[in-house]
């Protein structure tokens, strides 16, 4: 596994708002033998929703700039945020295929002395764990399986495009397999594919709250130990957003939200503190109790 060395793209939300998830993920990577070199001069990926609506060319240019940083390191780029993956992967693929677009982007990049070449690949966290390392290999690192714990998987929208290379986007199974690998049970539920609706806040807040409430209500009934995701936007939306929804529509949802690497870390023997569970808005006390 000597080739597990990547240029790490952390994005905006993880390093600034969820640094404990970054710290937990790096601990897990280290244990798995994944070496990462972080980018110190990266900008926002930029955001695949708002930037595309605001100025699509700016989206291409800024993403291409970030890609040139990884090209300089001559390593594949690893993203740990689904939004970053959607942006960087899509732009990378489009620029490789569209010479005209590449020329325009390069003429913009020349203003900052950069040139996009198209020499690297952009990888996702899900790809790394499921496809590259593999479930069997992951299991070897599990020393404290989360047996008896039931989690609702929430893949999120922005990773769907990435699934085509190793899973069925219409009925994905890779994430469920990762949950099984740590000894836990992934449950299937009706609103599994429902979007976290974070972008809808500005369009119609009540629709956003309803979308949150619909999923959380179903999960309440299913009595799960938590919702597990691999997207920081979805994480924030269900964690902090859950409290907001409770307040606004007078509900009592209490579903702890986890980033997959946190649960993987727990199964590897890291403590709840090392995995940053204390920073969660919806406290994970029940899970911690069950594990001790």
């Amino acid at each position, binding site marked *: 596994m000597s080739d597990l060395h990547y240029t790490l793209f952390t994005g905006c939300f993880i390093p600034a708002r969820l640094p404990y998830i970054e710290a937990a993920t790096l601990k897990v990577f280290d244990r798995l033998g994944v070496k990462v070199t972080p980018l110190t001069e990266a900008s926002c990926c930029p955001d695949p929703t708002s930037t595309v609506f605001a100025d699509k060319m700016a989206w291409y*240019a800024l993403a291409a700039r970030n890609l040139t940083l990884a090209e300089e390191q001559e390593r594949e780029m690893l993203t740990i945020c689904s939004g970053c993956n959607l942006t960087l992967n899509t732009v990378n693929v489009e620029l490789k295929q569209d010479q005209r677009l590449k020329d325009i982007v390069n003429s913009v990049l020349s203003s900052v002395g950069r040139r996009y070449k198209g020499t690297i690949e952009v990888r996702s966290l899900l790809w790394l764990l499921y496809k590259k390392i593999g479930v069997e290999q992951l299991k070897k690192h599990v020393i404290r399986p989360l047996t008896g714990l039931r989690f609702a998987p929430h893949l999120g929208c922005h990773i769907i495009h990435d699934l085509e290379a190793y899973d069925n986007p219409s009925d994905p199974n890779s994430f469920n397999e990762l949950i099984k690998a740590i000894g836990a049970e992934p449950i299937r539920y009706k609103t599994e594919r429902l979007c976290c609706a974070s972008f809808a806040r500005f369009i119609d807040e009540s629709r956003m709250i309803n979308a949150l409430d619909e999923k959380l209500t179903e999960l309440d009934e299913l009595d799960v130990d938590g919702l597990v995701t691999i997207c920081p936007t979805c994480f924030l939306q269900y964690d902090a957003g859950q409290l907001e929804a409770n307040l606004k529509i007078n509900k009592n949802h209490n579903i702890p939200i986890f980033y997959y690497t946190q649960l993987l870390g727990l199964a590897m023997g890291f403590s709840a503190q090392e995995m940053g569970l204390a920073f969660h808005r919806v406290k994970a006390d029940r899970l911690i109790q069950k594990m001790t």
Partner: protein
Amino acid sequence: MATVKWVLTFDPRFCDGCGDCVEACIKRLGDLRSTPAIKLVKDKQGKVAALSFCLQCDQPFCKIICPTGSILFDEFSGLSSVRSETCVGCRSCFLICPIEGVMFDTISGKAVKCDLCKGEPKCVKVCDRGALKYTLAEDLTTAKEGHIALLISASTKAGVLTAERGLALSTKFVGDALLFSQMISSKSEGLRKFLDYCANNLSTISNEASLAALSETILKRRRSLGLNEIRRPKEEVQTLLKSLTSLKEVKG
């Protein structure tokens, strides 16, 4: 630019509220019942005042937001439709549409929207009072533009419909569009806010090179977690975006 010639029109003056159009829409795929892609909008007296359906935007936001590329847009006809094979039912399209033009089918778990039945709208066939019509846009001359203007201005402000499209639509709805336009304007106000939010995000990136500025508190927390120092390339990002703006000015 799309070149739409045929439009669906609804005149509530001729509507008796029988609901046959909605029933026809439910059965539009044959035996398979589906969530209707049209919805009756009733006034306080319970009388049908408008019919809500996809306006076939020139710049469909549903298409931009869809994470699976499942909203297909035909440049020639200007029609957009859902490719249900790849739709995963995340409902992003439903959440972003200002006029509830996209619905969610709870049976199939997928998005549904009006695609004018590929040129032969079933709802029109069953409307024996002639409230619903499928007709050539240029043949329409009796549009109540005052009412329509409200509807159009609310939508164009949010950038959903182009000016040309707005003009075409002014001939699309006849009758009491007031209620419908009110319904739309409240939603498109939200959409305008969303677009403002998008523009703000881009200027935040321009100023901070990031969506989440790195305050001293954040940097301190990062240090306490043993994480690396981050520098945001603010100047380089600004130079790059300025270069892009001047490139656009040259082209424009």
